[in-house]
């Protein structure tokens, strides 16, 4: 095993309080990508 994720980064990744805010941020960001709509590509590459 090679430690590729630093201790501070790991703390950030697994800390429930930080991650709670990350959860909200991620949910919003994903909603924006998903709800950002979809469409065709053929007319004027819209």
């Amino acid at each position: 095993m090679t430690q590729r994720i630093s201790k501070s980064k790991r703390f950030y990744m697994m800390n429930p309080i930080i991650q709670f805010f990350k959860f909200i941020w991620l949910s919003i960001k994903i909603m924006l990508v998903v709800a950002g709509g979809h469409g065709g590509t053929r007319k004027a590459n819209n």
Partner: protein
Amino acid sequence: MSKIVILGAGISGHVAAAHLRRKLSKEHEVLVVSPNSNYQWIPSNIWVGIGRMKSDQILFPLAPLYKKKNISFKQALVTTFHPEGDAETKSAYVKIKYVTGEEKGKIENITYDYLINATGPKLAFDMTEGLNPGTNKAYSVCTYSHAEHAWHALDDLIQQMKQGKKAKILIGTGHAKSTCQGAAFEYILNVEQELRRHNVRDQAEVIWIANEFQLGDFGMDGVLLSYGDNIMKSSEMVEMVFEDRGIKWILGAGVNKIEDGIAHYETLDGEYKSETYDFAMLIPAFSGHGFKAFDKNNEDITEKLFKGFMLVDADYTAKPYEEWSVQDWPETYQNPSYKNIFAPGIAFAPPHAISKPRVSKNGTSISPAPPRTGMPSGITAKLVADNIIDTINGKKGLHHKGSLGNMGAACIASAGYGMTKGSGVSITTYPIVPDYNKYPDTQGRKLGKTFGEIGLAGHWLKLALHYAFIYKAKMKPFWWLIPE
């Protein structure tokens, strides 16, 4: 009055049925034909495969729900397509064969005004010699019963490891043209975490084997994504996670034969190699179901409907990778020969792969087939339903469009289960099929909308989606507010 027949009750078939029923008045009939009595939320099979969820947490029976919602349901398999009818049955129909109960084996012709083929893929284990879930120590997590079976075998191995056994675990793709690398990626990370939870991690060698040229290809040619303040390739992100977890990898491997505890494969260099294992989970090739179609004179017209999967409004002209274009991808999922037939989700034939095709020195094609994950399956099903509703209501043309080249996808890959110890790799991609003209400097994707995150929040999100999508699938109050 119109009759809409939906073949398949997976993500796309069920989404289409639910939206059609909600938006169409009672005079129109919505009929679902599917062989499985249950709806299953396939993404959570990963957790069934590590024993952290029971299969009854990811499924529910369809018949009572459909009865309540006034959706007709026949537990049967479609066998042949007759889009012009024939001498006996004047209108378009499909032939179905019942699979259960007193009617088991009975054949019936089901007529339709509109047909939605949402039969997904055939899990083509037979394309790899010896690959058959539950035999030769190789398993699958593609269905809940496969996943349960996989967990029993893994649990057994963990118990042996607790007694001191050293074990090799092999997870990845079981065919040179497999897709769905994402599911195998989730499973290997979940298995690795479970080994740590059971304090047997040191006794296990965990190996990723895949037909990908690079880690993190996922059948999408990889993605360039923002990760915090950095811009990273998905290959670098996956490499970081694998190295950190002590997972080894074998790439460019076309698995072609499975024997008891041995996977034989060919590499892109043309070498024939093998890897031994004590437990393997290998995703099979996905193929079309091999359906046949006939015209009104009973002449075979299969090539008008199928090219493996169902033909839709894609550009199927054969061309080299360099000439592939995002415009090749379908927008409405309508069959060009029979305008009342549609194929959303995995059921449509893609125009070509997304990942660069690669051939071994022996001429074997070893590269991922294009994935079609749950989100695009749901979105394409909904837009097909909306176009059918518009047509029934007299609107001309198909106005709802959704090319994979103009659609984002979120892939929340579970990297371990647990409210405090869990983890997820959340990746969003926009668009799914890279548009190199629009985003020439960022490998065809829009940065900002293509990002990655790793951590506990990813696990919570995946779990939240599990509950949200099962709520939605059960058509509970305001289910339609939850996006596909």
